[in-house]
Protein backbone atom coordinates (compact mmCIF):
# COMPACT_ATOMS: atom_id res chain seq x y z
CA UNK A 1 0.00 0.00 0.00
CA UNK A 2 2.81 2.38 1.00
CA UNK A 3 4.70 1.60 -2.22
CA UNK A 4 1.56 2.19 -4.30
CA UNK A 5 0.96 5.54 -2.60
CA UNK A 6 4.58 6.55 -3.19
CA UNK A 7 4.26 5.65 -6.88
CA UNK A 8 1.07 7.71 -7.20
CA UNK A 9 2.61 10.74 -5.47
CA UNK A 10 5.81 10.57 -7.55
CA UNK A 11 3.74 10.08 -10.71
CA UNK A 12 1.64 13.12 -9.86
CA UNK A 13 4.72 15.24 -9.15
CA UNK A 14 6.19 14.33 -12.52
CA UNK A 15 3.02 14.82 -14.52
CA UNK A 16 1.59 17.98 -12.93
CA UNK A 17 3.94 20.20 -14.87
CA UNK A 18 3.54 18.33 -18.13
CA UNK A 19 5.57 19.73 -21.00
CA UNK A 20 3.94 17.73 -23.75
CA UNK A 21 1.19 20.20 -24.50
CA UNK A 22 0.05 22.44 -27.27
CA UNK A 23 1.55 25.88 -27.57
CA UNK A 24 -0.72 28.39 -25.87
CA UNK A 25 1.86 30.90 -24.64
CA UNK A 26 4.39 31.68 -27.35
CA UNK A 27 3.44 34.26 -29.96
CA UNK A 28 4.80 34.25 -33.50
CA UNK A 29 6.17 37.78 -33.46
CA UNK A 30 7.63 38.31 -30.01
CA UNK A 31 10.69 40.35 -29.17
CA UNK A 32 11.90 40.32 -25.59
CA UNK A 33 14.99 42.37 -24.78
CA UNK A 34 16.97 41.87 -21.57
CA UNK A 35 19.78 43.69 -19.80
CA UNK A 36 22.37 41.18 -18.65
CA UNK A 37 24.41 42.02 -15.56
CA UNK A 38 27.37 40.13 -14.20
CA UNK A 39 28.54 40.14 -10.62
CA UNK A 40 32.05 41.55 -10.31
CA UNK A 41 33.46 41.51 -6.80
CA UNK A 42 29.98 41.69 -5.29
CA UNK A 43 28.80 44.51 -7.54
CA UNK A 44 26.55 43.97 -10.57
CA UNK A 45 27.78 45.49 -13.84
CA UNK A 46 25.67 45.72 -16.99
CA UNK A 47 27.62 43.81 -19.59
CA UNK A 48 25.36 42.71 -22.46
CA UNK A 49 22.01 42.82 -24.15
CA UNK A 50 20.13 39.60 -24.72
CA UNK A 51 17.21 39.45 -27.12
CA UNK A 52 14.77 36.62 -27.64
CA UNK A 53 12.71 36.75 -30.80
CA UNK A 54 10.16 34.55 -32.48
CA UNK A 55 8.94 34.54 -36.07
CA UNK A 56 7.25 32.18 -38.47
CA UNK A 57 9.48 30.93 -41.28
CA UNK A 58 8.22 29.01 -44.25
CA UNK A 59 9.95 26.18 -46.04
CA UNK A 60 8.59 24.64 -49.26
CA UNK A 61 6.24 22.33 -47.37
CA UNK A 62 5.78 23.66 -43.86
CA UNK A 63 5.75 26.61 -41.49
CA UNK A 64 8.04 26.58 -38.49
CA UNK A 65 8.49 28.84 -35.51
CA UNK A 66 11.98 30.34 -35.48
CA UNK A 67 13.22 30.99 -31.94
CA UNK A 68 16.22 33.27 -31.98
CA UNK A 69 18.33 34.29 -29.00
CA UNK A 70 21.11 36.84 -29.45
CA UNK A 71 23.62 37.99 -26.81
CA UNK A 72 25.68 41.08 -27.60
CA UNK A 73 28.05 42.91 -25.27
CA UNK A 74 27.51 46.65 -24.87
CA UNK A 75 29.90 48.64 -27.06
CA UNK A 76 31.88 49.84 -24.01
CA UNK A 77 32.80 46.18 -23.31
CA UNK A 78 33.58 45.20 -26.90
CA UNK A 79 37.26 46.18 -26.63
CA UNK A 80 37.72 44.06 -23.50
CA UNK A 81 35.52 41.00 -24.01
CA UNK A 82 33.37 40.94 -27.12
CA UNK A 83 30.42 38.57 -27.20
CA UNK A 84 28.34 37.87 -30.30
CA UNK A 85 26.29 34.77 -29.56
CA UNK A 86 23.51 33.43 -31.73
CA UNK A 87 21.29 30.59 -30.56
CA UNK A 88 18.46 29.41 -32.80
CA UNK A 89 15.83 26.72 -32.84
CA UNK A 90 13.32 25.91 -35.54
CA UNK A 91 10.34 24.26 -33.90
CA UNK A 92 6.87 23.01 -34.68
CA UNK A 93 4.66 26.06 -33.91
CA UNK A 94 2.01 23.90 -32.22
CA UNK A 95 4.06 21.49 -30.13
CA UNK A 96 7.35 23.44 -29.87
CA UNK A 97 9.23 20.24 -30.76
CA UNK A 98 12.57 21.17 -32.35
CA UNK A 99 13.61 20.23 -35.87
CA UNK A 100 16.85 22.19 -36.05
CA UNK A 101 19.02 23.83 -33.41
CA UNK A 102 21.98 26.06 -34.16
CA UNK A 103 24.48 27.68 -31.86
CA UNK A 104 27.05 30.06 -33.29
CA UNK A 105 29.08 31.79 -30.62
CA UNK A 106 31.91 34.28 -30.47
CA UNK A 107 33.09 34.99 -26.92
CA UNK A 108 36.29 36.98 -26.55
CA UNK A 109 37.86 35.27 -29.57
CA UNK A 110 36.50 31.80 -28.78
CA UNK A 111 34.40 30.50 -31.66
CA UNK A 112 32.10 27.49 -31.64
CA UNK A 113 29.36 26.28 -33.92
CA UNK A 114 26.88 23.57 -33.01
CA UNK A 115 24.08 22.17 -35.15
CA UNK A 116 21.53 19.54 -34.17
CA UNK A 117 19.08 18.10 -36.69
CA UNK A 118 16.31 16.28 -34.84
CA UNK A 119 14.69 13.21 -36.31
CA UNK A 120 11.85 12.46 -33.90
CA UNK A 121 10.55 9.44 -35.81
CA UNK A 122 13.95 7.70 -35.67
CA UNK A 123 14.69 9.19 -32.22
CA UNK A 124 18.08 10.45 -33.34
CA UNK A 125 19.94 13.73 -33.57
CA UNK A 126 22.57 14.49 -36.20
CA UNK A 127 25.14 16.63 -34.45
CA UNK A 128 27.78 18.80 -36.11
CA UNK A 129 30.23 20.71 -33.93
CA UNK A 130 33.09 22.90 -35.08
CA UNK A 131 35.45 25.15 -33.15
CA UNK A 132 37.86 27.89 -34.18
CA UNK A 133 39.92 25.63 -36.45
CA UNK A 134 36.83 24.91 -38.57
CA UNK A 135 37.18 21.12 -38.32
CA UNK A 136 33.72 19.60 -38.13
CA UNK A 137 32.92 16.71 -35.81
CA UNK A 138 29.83 14.82 -36.93
CA UNK A 139 27.92 12.35 -34.79
CA UNK A 140 24.53 10.71 -34.68
CA UNK A 141 23.14 10.66 -31.17
CA UNK A 142 20.29 8.65 -29.74
CA UNK A 143 17.48 10.80 -28.45
CA UNK A 144 15.40 9.96 -25.41
CA UNK A 145 11.74 10.85 -25.38
CA UNK A 146 11.19 14.48 -24.37
CA UNK A 147 14.77 15.63 -24.86
CA UNK A 148 15.07 19.04 -26.50
CA UNK A 149 17.68 21.63 -27.22
CA UNK A 150 18.37 24.54 -24.86
CA UNK A 151 16.34 27.20 -26.69
CA UNK A 152 13.25 25.05 -27.27
CA UNK A 153 13.39 24.11 -23.59
CA UNK A 154 13.36 27.76 -22.53
CA UNK A 155 10.18 28.30 -24.53
CA UNK A 156 8.66 24.99 -23.40
CA UNK A 157 9.04 26.06 -19.78
CA UNK A 158 6.90 29.08 -20.67
CA UNK A 159 4.31 26.76 -22.18
CA UNK A 160 3.90 24.62 -19.08
CA UNK A 161 0.61 24.79 -17.23
CA UNK A 162 2.09 26.32 -14.08
CA UNK A 163 -1.30 27.63 -12.89
CA UNK A 164 -2.25 24.05 -11.98
CA UNK A 165 1.00 23.41 -10.10
CA UNK A 166 1.21 23.53 -6.31
CA UNK A 167 4.09 25.06 -4.40
CA UNK A 168 6.88 22.50 -4.19
CA UNK A 169 5.94 20.63 -7.39
CA UNK A 170 8.91 19.56 -9.47
CA UNK A 171 9.43 18.66 -13.11
CA UNK A 172 12.47 16.93 -14.55
CA UNK A 173 13.39 17.84 -18.10
CA UNK A 174 16.17 16.68 -20.39
CA UNK A 175 18.26 19.07 -22.44
CA UNK A 176 20.76 18.18 -25.14
CA UNK A 177 23.80 20.40 -24.71
CA UNK A 178 27.31 19.80 -26.04
CA UNK A 179 26.27 16.36 -27.33
CA UNK A 180 25.18 15.23 -23.89
CA UNK A 181 21.70 14.83 -22.48
CA UNK A 182 21.53 16.66 -19.19
CA UNK A 183 18.84 16.40 -16.53
CA UNK A 184 17.44 19.65 -15.27
CA UNK A 185 15.04 19.93 -12.37
CA UNK A 186 12.43 22.69 -12.20
CA UNK A 187 10.84 23.46 -8.86
CA UNK A 188 7.85 25.76 -8.53
CA UNK A 189 8.27 27.70 -5.28
CA UNK A 190 5.30 30.09 -5.43
CA UNK A 191 4.35 33.55 -6.61
CA UNK A 192 6.20 36.82 -6.12
CA UNK A 193 5.63 40.42 -7.23
CA UNK A 194 8.42 41.75 -9.44
CA UNK A 195 8.88 45.32 -10.72
CA UNK A 196 9.34 45.32 -14.50
CA UNK A 197 10.57 48.24 -16.63
CA UNK A 198 7.61 49.72 -18.51
CA UNK A 199 5.17 47.13 -17.17
CA UNK A 200 4.82 48.10 -13.50
CA UNK A 201 4.68 45.42 -10.86
CA UNK A 202 3.79 41.97 -12.10
CA UNK A 203 2.77 38.89 -10.19
CA UNK A 204 5.16 36.13 -11.23
CA UNK A 205 5.69 32.42 -10.90
CA UNK A 206 9.02 31.73 -9.24
CA UNK A 207 10.82 28.62 -10.49
CA UNK A 208 14.16 27.28 -9.29
CA UNK A 209 16.22 25.55 -11.96
CA UNK A 210 18.85 23.09 -10.79
CA UNK A 211 21.11 20.43 -12.23
CA UNK A 212 23.23 17.62 -10.87
CA UNK A 213 26.02 18.42 -13.32
CA UNK A 214 28.90 19.68 -11.16
CA UNK A 215 30.45 21.49 -14.13
CA UNK A 216 27.30 23.63 -14.51
CA UNK A 217 26.64 24.35 -10.86
CA UNK A 218 27.27 27.76 -9.34
CA UNK A 219 27.39 29.03 -5.79
CA UNK A 220 23.79 30.25 -5.85
CA UNK A 221 20.46 29.10 -7.25
CA UNK A 222 19.25 29.66 -10.80
CA UNK A 223 15.83 31.27 -10.56
CA UNK A 224 13.39 32.38 -13.24
CA UNK A 225 10.36 34.58 -12.68
CA UNK A 226 7.58 34.21 -15.28
CA UNK A 227 4.56 36.51 -15.37
CA UNK A 228 1.60 34.71 -13.80
CA UNK A 229 -0.59 35.08 -16.88
CA UNK A 230 -1.16 33.14 -20.09
CA UNK A 231 2.00 34.49 -21.77
CA UNK A 232 4.37 33.62 -18.92
CA UNK A 233 6.99 36.12 -20.00
CA UNK A 234 10.37 35.69 -18.24
CA UNK A 235 10.87 39.04 -16.51
CA UNK A 236 13.84 38.21 -14.34
CA UNK A 237 16.40 35.44 -14.48
CA UNK A 238 19.07 35.04 -11.82
CA UNK A 239 21.82 32.66 -12.82
CA UNK A 240 24.79 31.11 -11.10
CA UNK A 241 27.53 29.51 -13.13
CA UNK A 242 30.89 28.12 -11.95
CA UNK A 243 32.61 31.42 -12.80
CA UNK A 244 30.15 33.78 -11.15
CA UNK A 245 26.60 35.01 -10.86
CA UNK A 246 24.44 37.46 -12.72
CA UNK A 247 20.96 38.34 -13.82
CA UNK A 248 18.86 39.15 -16.85
CA UNK A 249 16.19 41.81 -16.44
CA UNK A 250 13.45 42.40 -18.99
CA UNK A 251 13.98 45.83 -20.58
CA UNK A 252 11.31 45.74 -23.26
CA UNK A 253 8.69 43.39 -24.65
CA UNK A 254 7.02 43.61 -28.05
CA UNK A 255 4.44 41.44 -29.75
CA UNK A 256 3.38 39.49 -26.67
Amino acid at each position, binding site marked *: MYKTLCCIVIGLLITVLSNAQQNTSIGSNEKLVYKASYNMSGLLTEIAQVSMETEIVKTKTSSLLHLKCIAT*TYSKWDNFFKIRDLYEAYVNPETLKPRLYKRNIYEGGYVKKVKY*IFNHSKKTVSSTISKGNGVEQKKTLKLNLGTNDLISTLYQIRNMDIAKASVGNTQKIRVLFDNKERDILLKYVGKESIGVTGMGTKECYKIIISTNEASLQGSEQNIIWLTADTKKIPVLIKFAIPVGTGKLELASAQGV
Partner: protein
Amino acid sequence: MRIIFVILASVGILLGVLFVILPMGSIAIVPSVVAVLFAYLALNKSSDSHKNFPKILMVIASLLIVVGVSKHFFVKTEIAKDNSFEERVDDSQKEAIEELESLEKELEE
Protein backbone atom coordinates in the same frame (compact mmCIF):
# COMPACT_ATOMS: atom_id res chain seq x y z
CA MET B 1 49.54 54.02 11.15
CA ARG B 2 50.23 56.76 8.63
CA ILE B 3 52.12 54.31 6.42
CA ILE B 4 49.21 51.85 6.47
CA PHE B 5 46.80 54.60 5.40
CA VAL B 6 49.20 55.68 2.64
CA ILE B 7 49.50 52.09 1.38
CA LEU B 8 45.71 51.58 1.45
CA ALA B 9 45.14 54.87 -0.38
CA SER B 10 47.73 53.89 -3.00
CA VAL B 11 46.09 50.49 -3.52
CA GLY B 12 42.73 52.26 -3.84
CA ILE B 13 44.19 54.55 -6.50
CA LEU B 14 45.66 51.63 -8.46
CA LEU B 15 42.30 49.85 -8.39
CA GLY B 16 40.58 53.13 -9.20
CA VAL B 17 42.74 53.57 -12.33
CA LEU B 18 41.95 50.00 -13.40
CA PHE B 19 38.22 50.41 -12.75
CA VAL B 20 38.10 53.75 -14.58
CA ILE B 21 39.79 52.22 -17.64
CA LEU B 22 37.40 49.26 -17.60
CA PRO B 23 33.74 50.05 -18.41
CA MET B 24 32.55 49.36 -14.88
CA GLY B 25 29.88 52.07 -14.66
CA SER B 26 29.29 53.70 -11.28
CA ILE B 27 31.25 50.93 -9.50
CA ALA B 28 34.41 52.49 -10.95
CA ILE B 29 34.41 55.29 -8.37
CA VAL B 30 34.24 52.98 -5.33
CA PRO B 31 38.01 52.35 -4.94
CA SER B 32 38.74 56.02 -5.63
CA VAL B 33 36.33 57.12 -2.88
CA VAL B 34 38.03 54.67 -0.51
CA ALA B 35 41.41 56.07 -1.60
CA VAL B 36 40.29 59.63 -0.79
CA LEU B 37 39.21 58.53 2.69
CA PHE B 38 42.50 56.78 3.43
CA ALA B 39 44.51 59.67 1.96
CA TYR B 40 42.59 62.05 4.24
CA LEU B 41 43.33 59.85 7.28
CA ALA B 42 47.00 59.68 6.24
CA LEU B 43 47.03 63.48 5.93
CA ASN B 44 45.65 63.85 9.47
CA LYS B 45 48.29 61.49 10.83
CA SER B 46 51.15 63.24 9.01
CA SER B 47 53.44 65.82 10.49
CA ASP B 48 53.61 69.20 8.71
CA SER B 49 56.74 68.19 6.78
CA HIS B 50 55.13 64.95 5.47
CA LYS B 51 51.74 66.19 4.28
CA ASN B 52 52.65 66.51 0.58
CA PHE B 53 52.35 62.84 -0.44
CA PRO B 54 48.87 62.28 1.13
CA LYS B 55 47.78 65.52 -0.56
CA ILE B 56 48.96 64.21 -3.94
CA LEU B 57 47.11 60.92 -3.32
CA MET B 58 43.94 62.88 -2.47
CA VAL B 59 44.20 64.93 -5.67
CA ILE B 60 44.76 61.83 -7.85
CA ALA B 61 41.87 59.95 -6.20
CA SER B 62 39.59 63.00 -6.58
CA LEU B 63 40.50 63.26 -10.28
CA LEU B 64 39.70 59.56 -10.71
CA ILE B 65 36.27 60.16 -9.12
CA VAL B 66 35.63 63.03 -11.57
CA VAL B 67 36.68 60.84 -14.53
CA GLY B 68 34.59 57.90 -13.25
CA VAL B 69 31.47 60.04 -12.74
CA SER B 70 31.93 61.69 -16.17
CA LYS B 71 32.28 58.30 -17.86
CA HIS B 72 29.16 57.09 -16.08
CA PHE B 73 27.12 59.97 -17.54
CA PHE B 74 28.72 60.27 -20.97
CA VAL B 75 29.47 56.69 -22.00
CA LYS B 76 26.18 55.17 -23.14
CA THR B 77 25.10 51.63 -22.32
CA GLU B 78 24.14 50.52 -25.80
CA ILE B 79 25.11 47.93 -28.35
CA ALA B 80 27.07 48.95 -31.41
CA LYS B 81 25.80 48.31 -34.92
CA ASP B 82 27.71 45.27 -36.11
CA ASN B 83 27.17 44.62 -39.80
CA SER B 84 29.27 41.45 -39.91
CA PHE B 85 27.26 39.92 -37.05
CA GLU B 86 23.98 40.92 -38.70
CA GLU B 87 25.19 39.22 -41.88
CA ARG B 88 26.10 36.12 -39.85
CA VAL B 89 22.57 36.06 -38.40
CA ASP B 90 20.93 36.45 -41.83
CA ASP B 91 23.20 33.83 -43.42
CA SER B 92 22.46 31.42 -40.60
CA GLN B 93 18.72 31.71 -41.25
CA LYS B 94 19.15 31.20 -45.01
CA GLU B 95 21.32 28.12 -44.40
CA ALA B 96 18.80 26.80 -41.87
CA ILE B 97 15.89 27.06 -44.31
CA GLU B 98 17.94 25.22 -46.95
CA GLU B 99 18.83 22.52 -44.40
CA LEU B 100 15.20 22.18 -43.29
CA GLU B 101 14.03 21.87 -46.88
CA SER B 102 16.58 19.17 -47.66
CA LEU B 103 15.54 17.39 -44.44
CA GLU B 104 11.88 17.53 -45.51
CA LYS B 105 12.87 16.16 -48.92
CA GLU B 106 14.75 13.27 -47.26
CA LEU B 107 11.74 12.46 -45.08
CA GLU B 108 9.42 12.48 -48.11
CA GLU B 109 11.68 10.02 -49.90
